[in-house]
């Protein structure tokens, strides 16, 4: 009897629990969950597109930085590496072909062009003076091909001691920087009144 009662109680309790838990969600629940999932999906998509966007920005920045560094670090030939070329003018047709005349380093040094070269004529040259500053403002001297050839001959002759260089100091002197300009003293000018006018 007690057992039956207990079983009945058990069943009744189960039913009671099932009834208490037998609550259904509202009809909007499932659509809301679906909307939330769609939202998650969009957020995920946004994440990826944002990631790609960021990746693009990073790649572009890296490319710009690399090019910048490459340009700045490009061993810009100093004036010492400047070379003389044919200008391409004159009788040799187009003259597009450039030739290094092998002037060496001293010929192009601006501060003392004559000090170390045997014949330091600041010749008419075609110089690519590419220094870091000169990258922005290129500097070049153009000479005619025949003149370049003459210069080459001259330097070759000097190199093989076929020419004496003792007469050059005059040139050297001519190329020296001019003496500083003396200060000009201006005396005050006094203008005396005209006599004729005074009489009037």
């Amino acid at each position, binding site marked *: 009897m007690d057992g039956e009662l207990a079983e009945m109680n058990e069943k009744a309790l189960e039913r009671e629990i099932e009834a*208490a838990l037998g609550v259904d969600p509202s009809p909007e629940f499932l659509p809301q969950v679906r909307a939330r999932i769609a939202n998650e999906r969009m957020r995920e998509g946004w994440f990826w597109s944002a990631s790609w966007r960021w990746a693009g920005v990073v790649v572009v920045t890296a490319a710009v930085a690399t090019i910048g560094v490459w340009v700045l670090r490009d061993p810009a030939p100093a004036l010492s590496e400047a070379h003389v070329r044919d200008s391409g003018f004159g009788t040799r047709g187009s003259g597009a072909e450039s030739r290094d005349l092998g002037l060496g380093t001293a010929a192009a040094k601006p501060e003392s062009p004559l000090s170390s070269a045997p014949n330091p004529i600041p010749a008419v040259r075609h110089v690519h003076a590419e220094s870091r500053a000169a990258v922005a403002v290129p500097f070049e001297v153009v000479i005619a091909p025949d003149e370049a050839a003459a210069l080459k001959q001259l330097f070759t002759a000097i190199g093989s001691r076929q020419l004496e260089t003792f007469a050059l100091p005059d040139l050297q002197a001519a190329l020296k920087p001019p003496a500083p300009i003396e200060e000009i003293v201006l005396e005050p000018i006094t203008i005396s009144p005209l006599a004729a006018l005074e009489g009037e």
Partner: protein
Amino acid sequence: MHERAERLVGSLVTADLELEREFEARLSDSSRLAFRVAYSVLRQREDAEDVAQEAFAKAYRSFNQLRDRTRFRAWLVRMTWRLALDRQRASRRHSRRLVEAGLLARLDQSDETTADVVVARERAEHLWNAIEALPEKLRLVVVLAGIEGHDMHEVSALLDVPEGTVKSRLFLARKQLKDRLSWMASSLR
């Protein structure tokens, strides 16, 4: 090379679509379960819906990481249960809550008198208090056994524990419930 890349992208898209479809199927299949698990803790329809929704969103985010998809329901139950407990701890609003929703709706629709409704409401309130007073492990077993007519085997699968353990836990839980509701037991006859 190009074809291979296209094939790879195609297979990824297909895999994604399959995953979406599978998740949708699981969602339709388990939405009520998640809601009821949340409800058993929170006893508020809106809160339970919120928590179940949150659990589904979490599940969606990690769905592709779930190796054994047949374990989805168990996974969802655990997640919902944890989220519901967190919500319950966070909000102390549930201190004095009326039993609402289904039970009351059923009572309102029936021909029962106001006195009957009051008695039923009080009984349900006591039952909920008794369930809430159970240790967490016993509580979850009782709840899962009371939802959707789950049998021992299903509960053991949902909790990932042996059937024997479920049986003993359920026995213990019911005993404790009966002790707490002794006055109610006589009226249930």
